[in-house]
């Protein structure tokens, strides 16, 4: 167990350093969601005039979008880095060492999780500076950070599975529009009860990303909503678990093949 923790720490450290050394990797996830949050929260402010809209601040309503977009970037970062390791043969060399598959996978998402933590602090700080009030108080703010990091880890694990499955960075990147589509067909822009088009509302209802967003949103605009938090944390943990299982299975297959 101690040995495995040591292995996870070593691979995580490598992953973190690698991410930090590539500004092209971490600048877009830090800036792009903030820009979109600033633009869209103003462009869509008129939506707060709709009867039944839950808050007067569209920025507070829209804030979770930044966390989700940041988490999607995490999947790309973790996946692309692992794909590069496959491409350069690092993974094969690592397979000759006593490092276990589980340690390798957990370590590989270190960069994405580290960046996820920085992103979460930055997005939350920017929102607070722009006047967003967290209804759930400081405890809610801490939970937002925890939730954002967990979501980054979940999407990061999904990126690992994609990398192991496709074996190429291009393959991982080509899945990004699909993941982004999951974000678009969620309740990110309007609450589900205000979505007029039935098929879109149905898609948003079966889309787990809606519940991830709504959990974060509930802490900002409602306070402590047990149902939203349970659903959100449940989806986040399920995403992590399913992605890790898929990645572990794919890693075994890849190692067998080589």
């Amino acid at each position, binding site marked *: 167990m101690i040995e495995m923790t040591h292995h996870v720490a070593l691979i995580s450290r490598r992953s973190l350093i690698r991410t930090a050394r590539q500004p092209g990797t971490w600048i877009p996830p830090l800036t792009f969601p903030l820009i979109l949050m600033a633009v869209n929260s103003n*462009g869509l*402010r*008129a939506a707060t005039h709709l009867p039944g809209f839950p808050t007067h601040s569209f920025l507070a309503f829209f804030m979770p979008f930044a966390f989700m977009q940041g988490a999607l970037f995490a999947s790309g970062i973790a996946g692309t880095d692992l794909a590069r390791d496959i491409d350069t043969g690092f993974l094969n060399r690592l397979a000759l060492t006593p490092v276990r598959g589980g340690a390798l996978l957990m370590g590989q998402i270190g960069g994405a999780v580290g960046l996820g933590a920085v992103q979460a602090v930055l997005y939350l700080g920017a929102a607070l500076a722009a006047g967003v009030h967290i209804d759930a108080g400081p405890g809610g703010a801490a939970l937002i950070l925890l939730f954002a990091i967990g979501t980054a880890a979940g999407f990061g694990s999904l990126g690992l599975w994609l990398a192991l499955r496709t074996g190429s960075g291009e393959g991982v990147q080509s899945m990004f529009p699909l993941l*982004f589509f999951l974000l*678009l067909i969620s309740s990110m822009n309007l609450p589900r009860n205000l979505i007029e088009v039935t098929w879109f509302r149905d898609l948003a209802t079966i889309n787990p990303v809606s519940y991830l967003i709504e959990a974060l949103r509930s802490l900002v605009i409602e306070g402590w909503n047990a149902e939203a938090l349970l659903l959100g944390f449940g989806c986040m943990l399920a995403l992590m678990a399913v992605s890790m299982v898929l990645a572990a299975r794919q890693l075994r297959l890849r190692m067998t093949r080589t």
Partner: protein
Amino acid sequence: MSSRLEVALALAYRQTTVLLKNPSFFVPPMLFPLMNFVAFAGGLSRLHQVPGFGFPDGYTAFVFVFVLLQSAAFGGVFTGFAIARDFERGFARRLLVSAPHRSGIIIGYGLAAFVRWSMIAAVLTVVALVGHMQIGGDGIDLFGLYGLAVIFNQVGLLWACGVAMRLRSVQAAPLMQTPVFLALFLAPVYVPRALLQGWIHSVAALNPLTYLLEAGRGLISGRPDEVVLAFGVALLLLAAFAVWARTGLSRAERAGA
């Protein structure tokens, strides 16, 4: 003139063939506007109930104009990625050596951008019609709308071409697309300009793309408004970015690509 046209047609043919033979180059740019259209038209349609919205043909038509113009601009920008790739792989160097009239190179890339976007626009229009988009405008109005989009497609291409020929690397891709993306979203995307509040209202008033978007929405609803102004702005942008692209080509020539 004829050799310039030959260079342009040959290059456009090559670019289109490469595009069609590589789904990974073609599919994502096709999916991007479609996804936006589905998300906006489906998820935000309640916005037409906001007091003062005042667009008669429904939210689908309102947002279609934005997505059409967005697809046009990105059709050009994605062709810019191909130009950068050509420089990275040495094809552009051989092209500069062999082309008798080098300005034909920009025209060729422009034609390729148009062909690429035409396919995207056709799919987008079919999807919008299947989604029961209401069109209030007549044939002439729609010709004007698509004409505006064609010009904007070339504006996007010329901007990206200028960047690609100056930096000659695919790593310049964010520099090609981010300003276009921002300029588009700083226009009245989701609601009419009158409903925008705060700083974005002031920025939208200064943003030239606002006039293209508003004229496009007037054309699709059959109530053309400030169309001459919009075409004037579009042609001005076209002229400015043509100079940007041509000076970029000169830079590439001086650098020996």
